[in-house]
């Protein structure tokens, strides 16, 4: 019995080692691919290109769609931010998803909104919409507000926004996100520059915590968050975007476009049925569905990610809100693999089916489970006095140093794209913070992920939950100050 126990534990340790080494190899490949893409992008994109879109008759229109549910604290600032994007042809569609606070009233007051006749065509089914509001002030002629019954998820509200959108492309973002001025012009370029149809474009997102925002909703100074949780999340996002997504983009195998910022071809999204209102991972879900649609009809496509930072979002500042966010993501991930299990290892779905989704399943979904079992086995070995501490620390160091290297690589790629922080020392701060991230932050991710999986499997009734907004730091003396170029 004792031998069997030891054999099981030893085998499991070899599995964990093999698993870790497989992650290292895959990420090594992703880093190589990401490096090529990041440097290629940086070498061929500049402000001259952004200016070409102004006044060009070939520039397509883009709708910015942002669902809003109980966002009274930041709604005005965020809508203003979206309205000041620097792009010649765009509109902003805010979907008031049955807010119970003063979100709609504040918008009506601020933007001179009135209920207006609008032939709303329900191309994608949603919860009933009540009315459309437009502004009587020409300054806000680009703004459309869709007022509808609460659909329970962001997906339903996004679909209503798509129904009301006028332009052939749309950016789906969260209403708490601050878009950069160049967001639209940067994100549309991969679509215009490709001879293959680009059906979606992603870009880098960062934390808005501690950043300075002007009264007009423009990002004035980008700073690293002051508190640990959003700081860790910033680093995690950079790893995900700069290494993960850039690498996947290089081989046209993007597993998902972030729900906080994604530019989509509207006709393809509608043809694919829009966002799934029951999904808690609507970003991954819609990406899978539009790929499936294109593959089912044998149409060539690309999904691209650009390394440029186009958006800032408020990161969860407290553990309670972070818990809510991560358990929801974990539930969504498990739900996704159950609903879309037909894609996995299915050659019909190309690289999505054979590479990126299996990768996400094995190395992202299973990772918390494998880590938790590994931790239990280590504890058992330690209690029974069978642990080889030298080997243990070596393996821990192996995983730890790899994580550090990967994080620093992501920071390096970000630096090469644009010096984004107002104070360069923030880069050194990040280089220090990544030393404690695996010890402090990573266990939280594992814990909340497992909690999310258990919640889903025990079928508790879920609501989207509310992000408690802190609001952004605003220096009220600042008006229209240009971003300091480093």
């Amino acid at each position, binding site marked *: 019995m004792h031998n069997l126990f030891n054999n099981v534990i030893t085998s499991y340790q070899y599995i964990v080692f093999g698993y870790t080494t497989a992650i290292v190899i895959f990420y090594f490949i992703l880093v190589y691919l990401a490096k090529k893409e990041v440097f290629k992008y940086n070498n061929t994109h500049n402000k001259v290109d952004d200016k070409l879109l102004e006044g060009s008759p070939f520039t397509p*229109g883009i709708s910015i769609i942002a669902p809003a549910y109980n966002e009274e604290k930041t709604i005005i600032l965020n809508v203003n931010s979206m309205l000041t994007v620097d792009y010649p042809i765009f509109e902003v569609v805010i979907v008031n998803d049955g807010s119970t606070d003063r979100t709609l009233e504040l918008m009506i007051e601020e933007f001179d909104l009135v209920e207006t006749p609008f032939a709303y065509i329900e191309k994608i089914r949603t919860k009933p919409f009540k009315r459309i509001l437009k502004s009587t002030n020409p300054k806000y002629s680009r703004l459309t507000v869709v007022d509808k019954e609460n659909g329970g998820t962001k997906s339903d509200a996004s679909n209503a926004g798509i129904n009301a959108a006028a332009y052939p492309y749309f950016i789906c973002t969260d209403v708490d996100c601050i878009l950069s001025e160049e967001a639209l012009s940067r994100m549309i370029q991969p679509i*215009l520059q490709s001879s293959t149809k680009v059906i979606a474009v992603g870009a880098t997102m960062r934390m808005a915590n501690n950043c300075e925002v002007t009264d007009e909703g423009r990002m004035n100074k980008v700073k690293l968050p002051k508190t640990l949780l959003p700081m860790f999340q910033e680093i995690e996002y950079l790893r995900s975007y700069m290494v993960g997504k850039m690498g996947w983009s290089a081989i046209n195998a993007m597993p998902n476009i972030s729900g906080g910022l994604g530019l989509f071809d509207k006709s393809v999204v509608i043809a694919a049925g829009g966002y799934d209102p029951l999904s808690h991972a609507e970003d991954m879900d819609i990406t899978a569905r539009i790929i499936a649609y294109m593959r089912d009809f044998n149409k060539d496509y690309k999904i691209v990610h650009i390394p440029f930072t186009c958006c800032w979002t408020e990161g969860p500042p407290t553990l309670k809100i972070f818990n809510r966010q991560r358990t929801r993501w974990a539930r969504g991930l498990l739900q996704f693999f159950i609903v879309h299990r037909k894609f996995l290892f299915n050659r019909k779905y190309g690289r999505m089916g054979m590479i990126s989704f299996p990768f996400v399943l094995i190395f992202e979904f299973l990772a918390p489970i494998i880590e938790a079992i590994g931790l239990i086995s280590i504890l058992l070995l330690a209690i029974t006095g069978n642990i080889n501490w030298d080997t243990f620390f070596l393996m821990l160091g192996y995983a730890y140093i790899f994580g550090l290297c990967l994080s620093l690589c992501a920071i390096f790629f970000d630096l090469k794209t644009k010096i984004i922080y107002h104070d360069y020392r923030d880069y050194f701060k990040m280089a220090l913070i990544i030393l404690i991230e695996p010890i402090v932050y990573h266990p939280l991710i594992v814990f909340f992920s497992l909690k999310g999986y258990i919640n889903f499997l025990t079928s508790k009734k879920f609501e989207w939950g509310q992000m408690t907004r802190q609001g952004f730091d605003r220096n009220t003396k600042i008006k229209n100050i240009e971003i300091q170029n480093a």
Partner: protein
Amino acid sequence: MNDFYYELSKHFYNVYFFIIAQPLVIKIAVCCVIIFTLGYFVFLGNILVTKLLIDKRKIREKKLFEQYNDKLHEILLSDKIMILEEIENVLPKNSRKLSKKDNRLLSKIIIDILEENPQFNTKNLEVLLAHFNLKKFWENELEYSDFQKKYKAIDRVNQLKVSLPSESIISRLTYSKNKLLRKKARAAYIHMTSNDPFRFFTEDFDKEVTDWDKITLHEMLLKLPKSKIPNFSQWINTSKNNALKAFYMYEIYFYNQRAACPFVLAHFETNDLELRKTVVDVLGKMKYKQAEKKFIEEFPNQPLVIQNSIIKAVARFKNPESLEFLKQAFLNAYNNESKITIAKALYNFSKEANEFLEENKVNEKDYFQKLIIEHIKNPLIVNHNA
């Protein structure tokens, strides 16, 4: 010292032989730890070096700005045409001997002045570029530097309005293996050369023509005086690339080359729906009424996207005899988005068309159909069926 090296190498070999005696798993882990630790310090070093380079560049930029900005403003915005000696007297001594990095930064300062002040003195700019030898500098960048610098040099040459002494400099880039550089050079070729600037239109520009290529080509054409704009119809029939044909058609509309309209109409029978749509859109915008009869005849046989374009074109022609066609199209439309398009066309068509819409609204029992008419009349909606 020898003892130290002996002890160090002894220690190294002890560690080495210890490690190679271990199981494979341990060897892999140790190698990876060493590689990743080195990688960590390499990346950290890079971040530090980047900071130092940025600081150095900022100092250099600030110094150049303080030295030259005011004087460059004085020269470029002066009404007086200055000769070389006068410019040399205004500028600091040794201003001709700048490094490559300084030349790039100085060019940026000049470009910023040109962009802020479109009415700059073009003669003084030429003399200024000659003084700093920037023309030669950017020619060398185009010829001898790496891909990234060449790519940026094309923009700089355009922005500085440098006229190249010989097209061979840009010609070489137009056959580059790098697709992005090749296309950029071919677009810039239009503006940079006077001998056969539209050579690449005859060669179908490139293997693929994207929307971005259309944007850059249009931008280059805008830089030319109207007298140098070619007749685009010469390429409509010869080009094998439908995207390029669509581009030429658009330019025919933009430059109002009415004599080319029959050649555009001849492409209505194409199998390429995008091209067909462009034919209809262009002739509609140009109000080429000779196409109206064909459009109306073909309307029932066309897919929805072409039908919508035909509606918009007929609305532009404003031929009272076409009102009945528009009315029938409205009544028979089965697609709500098309109905909105047709309603808008009627709304902007004539008084009689408006009366038809109102009458339809009163008689219509379906609320949504009534709403369509309210929608297109709504002045707050500025992008109907954009």
